[in-house]
């Protein structure tokens, strides 16, 4: 749920990176933190195990001059991807305004990807939201690895809800490929919905395409 503070002229929005374990959610935030200019970011905080597996969440605030007359602050979170942390994912997902669903493109990760997307759908439903309404994009990560599924296959499996295609992006997160493109894309979708809900003027290029 977004938050508008007229006293400080701030808008706060929450974006969550979701996906199965080791798909690249934390890497996305690490790369953004490394590459973005200092004025636009806060510190990256990771609550992780000693093996660098996300235990609770990663968190990083970003700011941008996206809305005229307001400072826009994005709270970026990742969820823990391992199956046993479902309750934690629910807590982190609470109040999300947009989701980047990160897909591990490797063939042997397909089942985990599918289960993770189903899990996202279930957790959204529990908080009264759904994949049909919340802004989200698909990031097909690890495109540089040898045993990856073709993009068309991934689109068929993950981007086929009721004939409506969501924006999707190929990525190699450690190299930064597709990372900022994904970030800008989800920010635009989230803000378009925000201004639409408040009777403002959204950008003409909608990003949604019918299959």
């Amino acid at each position, binding site marked *: *749920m*977004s*938050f*508008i*503070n*007229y*006293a400080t002229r701030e*808008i*706060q929005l*929450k974006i969550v990176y979701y996906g199965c374990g080791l798909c690249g959610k*934390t890497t996305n935030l*690490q*790369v953004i933190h*490394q*590459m*973005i200019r200092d004025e*636009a970011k*806060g*510190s990256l*905080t990771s*609550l992780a195990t000693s093996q660098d597996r996300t235990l*609770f*969440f990663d*968190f990083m*605030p*970003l700011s941008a*001059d*996206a*809305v*005229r*007359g*307001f400072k*826009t*602050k994005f*709270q970026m979170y990742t969820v823990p991807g391992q199956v046993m942390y479902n*309750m*934690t994912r629910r*807590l*982190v997902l*609470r*109040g999300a305004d947009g989701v980047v669903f990160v897909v591990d493109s490797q063939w042997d990760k397909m089942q985990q990807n599918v289960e993770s997307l189903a899990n996202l759908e279930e957790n959204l439903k529990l908080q009264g939201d759904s994949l049909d309404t919340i802004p989200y994009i698909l990031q097909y990560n690890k495109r540089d690895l040898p045993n990856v599924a073709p993009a068309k296959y991934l689109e068929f499996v993950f981007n086929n809800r009721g004939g409506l295609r969501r924006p999707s992006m190929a990525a190699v997160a*450690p*190299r*930064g490929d597709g*990372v*900022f493109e994904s*970030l*800008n894309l989800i*920010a*635009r979708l989230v*803000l*378009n919905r925000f*201004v639409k*809900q*408040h*009777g*403002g*003027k*959204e*950008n003409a290029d909608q990003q949604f395409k019918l299959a």
Partner: protein
Amino acid sequence: MAFVLTAKDVQRMNGVLNQLMARAEAQGGMVCDFSGHVLTEVGFDSQDPMLISALGAGVFAASRELARLLGEDEFSSVIHQGEKRGLFICAVDRDTLLVVAFSVSASMGLVKLYARPAVAELRALFAAVQERAESRPSDEQSFVLNDAKEWFGSEEKPTAP
């Protein structure tokens, strides 16, 4: 929909926090929501309020689930106490939290005692905010996005994380 606060709402909240801090001899007070957004804060100058809010919301949400596992509706508050400073977190309503930072020289009992009327005042304020949001649309300006191809750009190639 969004959670909307006017300048008057923030002024009132700051008044509640300042009074709480004066009475309880606390060092910092913050109101945040369960998503981790900072609604307002007083006294957290050298720390990162957004980070405290995100972590505090996470901690309280986790404690809530632990309480449910133990057959409780929720734990009314969460207290963390270090050698020099402590943190008190309690729910204002189902969407918002009160976070109070105090030094160990202050009395924990005072913090808990004065947090209660502060929570009651904040709860009444948020009830009014909710009622306002439901009864009439905001008469503040509508929002326009800045024309920009990208709001976030990269400055350098990453080294392997």
